[in-house]
C-alpha cells in the first residue's frame, strides 16, 4: 500500500480529463441552441414544407435516405407531399429551392449537434453558397498540400 498517493493522484487526473467537457461547458456557459431559419421570401406560393415541421425537424434524414434509395436504385423520381402536390424527390432541386439559406438552415443545427453529413461534397448548392464553398475548398486543399 506504499503507492496509495500515486494511485489516488492518477484517479484524480483521470476523472478531471473524463469530465473535461462537463466543466468546460459549465465555465464557458452552454452554447444556446438556435433553431433553423426558415426562409420563404424567395419562394412565393410555397409556404409549406413537404412534411409537417415537427416531422422534418427530427426525421428529415430518414426521408432523404428513403428518397435517395428510391431515386437512385429504382429510378422512381416523383412523389406527393403531405398535401397531395406532385414533387420531385430531390435535395438540390426541391429542398434547396425553398431552403436556399444553407448556413442558417442546415449548418446551424448540424454544427450544434456535431454532425457532418456529406451531402454537399457532391450535391450542388444554390449559386452564391456554391461560389463561397468552392473558394473555401480550394483554400483548404492548398493548405493541406
Amino acid at each position, binding site marked *: 500500500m506504499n503507492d496509495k498517493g500515486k494511485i489516488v493522484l492518477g484517479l484524480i487526473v483521470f476523472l478531471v480529463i473524463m469530465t473535461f467537457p462537463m466543466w468546460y461547458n459549465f465555465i464557458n456557459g452552454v452554447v444556446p441552441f438556435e433553431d433553423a431559419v426558415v426562409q420563404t421570401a424567395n419562394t412565393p406560393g410555397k409556404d409549406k414544407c413537404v412534411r409537417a415541421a415537427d416531422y422534418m425537424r427530427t426525421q428529415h434524414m430518414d426521408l432523404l435516405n428513403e428518397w435517395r434509395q428510391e431515386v437512385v436504385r429504382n429510378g422512381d423520381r416523383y412523389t406527393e407531399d403531405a398535401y397531395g402536390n406532385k414533387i420531385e424527390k430531390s435535395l*438540390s432541386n426541391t429542398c434547396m429551392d425553398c431552403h436556399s439559406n444553407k448556413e442558417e438552415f442546415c449548418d446551424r443545427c448540424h454544427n450544434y449537434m456535431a454532425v457532418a453529413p*456529406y451531402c454537399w461534397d*457532391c450535391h*450542388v448548392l444554390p*449559386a452564391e453558397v*456554391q461560389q463561397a464553398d468552392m473558394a473555401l475548398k480550394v483554400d483548404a486543399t492548398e493548405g493541406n498540400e
Partner: protein
Amino acid sequence: MSFDRRKFVKAASIAALGGVVSPPLKLFGGVVVDGQSAEAVPEAVSGCIGCECSPVAPPTNATRWAMVIDLKTCREHEDCTICMDACHKTHNVPDVDNPKEQMKWIWKEHFGHAFHEADHPYLEEHVKHSNALLMCNHCNNPPCVSVCPTNATFKREKDGLVMMDWHRCIGCRYCIAACPYGSRSFNYTEPKKYFAEKGIQIEPDFPTRTRGVVEKCTFCEERLARGLWPACVDACPHNALVFGDLDNPDDPVRCLLAKHFTIRRKPALGTEPEIYYIV
C-alpha cells in the same frame, strides 16, 4: 429379354425418321413468320420516314435501352466534339489536364484500338485512320456489376441500364479492372477543385462526384426520367446517334439494326454490349 435387338432397331429407325422430318416442318412454319416480320419493318417507324428520324421524346415504357452510332456520319465530321462537350457539361465531368487522372464519360478512340478484332493492316483507308465514339456499353451481362463488392454498380431491372449509386461507391476500382471497354473513370482528386481552378460553372441540376468515387456514362437516366433524350443524342447536329428501346420491334433503333450491318465492341467476351456501330 423383352426389349430385343429387333425391337430396338425398329424404335431407333422411327426416332431417326422423326428427327429427319421435323426440322423442315419447323422451317416451313418459320418462313411464314419471317415473311410477316419483314413486312412489319417499314411500318414500324410510324410518323417517321426512314430509320434516321427519331420520335420527339424517348418512349416511357422501354425495357432495354440501346444506342446505334453511325460512324459513317461521324467520320464526315472528324473534329466534331459537340456530343462529348454536351455530355461533360451536363454531368459536371471535370476537364483534367493530367492524362493519368483524366475523367471521361464519352470519348473518341482510334478505330483500331476500339475495334481491335476488326482491325487489320489492309483496312479501308478512311476507316483505318478514323476515330470511333465510345462510351459505357450498358452491357446486358455487365462484368462491373458482378465484381462490385458494395452493389454500388447495378443493372436496373426495368430497362437494363447499368447504373451507379455514388453514395455507396467505396472506390475499390474493381469495376475499372473488370470493364473491358475502359468506360470508367476514378476521381483521384476532389472534382470540384477543377471547376474552381478553371472558372467553369458547375451545372446546378446535376451533382458532382467526390474524391475516391468511380463514375461513368449513365445513358442520361436523369434526362430519360424527364422525357428528354440523352444529352449526346440531343446535341448531335448530324443525327449520328440514335437511341431507343431494343425490345420494341417498332423502335427506330431496331429499324436501323435491321437495315444496316452493325458491329459491337469485343463481342467475344460475352458481355452483350448494347451500343451498335454502323461502320
